[in-house]
């Protein structure tokens, strides 16, 4: 049976779905969905094909949208998606992760929710906000957001989360208790001698290597890191990159040593691509070396950036790689990043890119 890719976009003005042909050369765009709400993350359950979209609307608050027909029709719910009376209300849903333990959602202000009924209702995984560090959590530029969410693929008790300006946490008991996982990641924005705290690190994106759950990669505000022990320790892999600063990271679908990044020029220099030339950077050896991939990407006078959830790979052979810019352009590669072409332009700012492979 032939396989085709669907690209799922979250944007400032709704969700979009692109359907590719068998060669991943021609794409049909549909949307905007979700009533043009700001949508931070759109994901699909790879088994069922159900699409979920996370966002928040200034008028109507947070919600998770769901479509079981690839975007033709949608429902939404925020039943149970709330903290207790008197606490700061949830503004928006930032991240979603279907898993063997249910559907998880990360929200702003930072917290974790779980749905055991496919997104119809939600329960607070309160253990995370019970962590003793919580009174000291401070929002970063993007807010106090739980943006990275990685359930273990086979052990429903284990989850890793990344909270902007707070760091990485891990639970081994289904969310009742959490431990910080920031050893080895820097805080260049703190005084000398205080740059390796237990928490307070500005994690930008956290991803897990395929078939190797103990290997995680982290793009941080201050460096690029790899852990081979479930985030207990992090080691810098930024040597060879043009910058230690960036937002997204995307793993190769089959190679645990394969990773794609899109570094930006630094946190105080405009946050666009280095030297105003677009490039995706790839490693095939776990970060020991890096290769810049530029063919088909604009060179010169490029002043866009790519946000933390806006890069993804697909599961075809060879792997496709996709990223969306904060100026509304979606680029794609059907050959593991060797060459690139714009897939869609003139979109709203792109907040997230994910893929779904469907049988046709």
């Amino acid at each position, binding site marked *: 049976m032939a396989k085709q890719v669907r690209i799922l976009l979250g944007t400032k003005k709704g969700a979009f779905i692109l359907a590719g042909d068998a060669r991943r050369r021609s794409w049909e765009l549909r949307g905007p969905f979700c009533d043009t709400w700001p949508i931070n993350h759109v994901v699909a359950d790879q088994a069922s094909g159900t699409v979920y979209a996370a966002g928040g609307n200034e008028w109507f*608050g947070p919600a998770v949208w769901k479509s079981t027909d690839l975007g033709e029709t949608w429902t939404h719910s*925020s039943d149970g998606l*709330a903290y207790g009376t008197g606490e700061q209300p949830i503004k928006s849903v930032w991240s979603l992760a279907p898993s063997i333990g249910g559907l998880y959602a990360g929200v702003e202000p930072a917290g974790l929710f779980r749905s055991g009924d496919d997104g119809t209702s939600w329960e607070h995984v309160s253990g995370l906000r019970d962590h003793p560090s919580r009174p000291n959590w401070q929002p970063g530029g993007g807010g106090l957001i739980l943006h990275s969410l990685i359930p273990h693929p086979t052990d429903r008790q284990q989850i890793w989360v990344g909270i902007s300006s707070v760091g990485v946490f891990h639970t081994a008991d289904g969310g009742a208790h959490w431990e910080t996982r920031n050893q080895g990641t820097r805080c260049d924005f703190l005084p000398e001698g205080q740059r390796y705290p237990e928490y307070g690190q500005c994690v930008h994106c956290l991803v897990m290597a395929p078939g190797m759950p103990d290997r995680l990669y982290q793009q941080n505000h201050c460096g690029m890191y790899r852990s081979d022990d479930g985030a207990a320790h992090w080691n810098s892999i930024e040597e060879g990159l043009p910058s230690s600063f960036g937002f997204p990271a995307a793993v190769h679908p089959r190679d645990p040593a394969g990773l794609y990044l899109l570094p930006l020029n630094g946190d105080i220099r405009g946050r666009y691509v280095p030297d105003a030339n677009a490039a995706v950077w790839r490693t095939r050896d776990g970060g020991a070396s890096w290769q810049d991939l530029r063919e088909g990407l604009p060179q010169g006078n490029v002043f866009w950036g790519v946000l933390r959830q806006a890069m993804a790979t697909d599961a075809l052979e060879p792997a496709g790689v996709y990223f969306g810019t904060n100026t509304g352009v979606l680029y794609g590669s059907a050959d593991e990043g060797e060459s690139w072409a714009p897939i869609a332009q003139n979109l709203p700012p792109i907040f997230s890119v994910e893929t779904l492979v469907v049988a046709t």
Partner: protein
Amino acid sequence: MVVVSLPPALLSLFPGCERQLELAAATVEEVMDALHARWPGMRDRLCDSTPRIRRHINIFVDGEKATLSTKLREGADVFIMTAISGG
């Protein structure tokens, strides 16, 4: 009974929802309860978990800005509006 008017941006979120309807309610809070009973989830769209009316939602009762505790006379006009917001 009171007469409740809903904002157009809310209607598409709840298929079958009417622009204007009559409800039995003695307070704005009870209007929210009644709307939620008819269209599950509508209360969450109009009120946050504090609980209070969402920051960018305005409710006017007989022309006066209201809160959840505002009392309603028989026949009151409850107008729910989206505030200026966006970008």
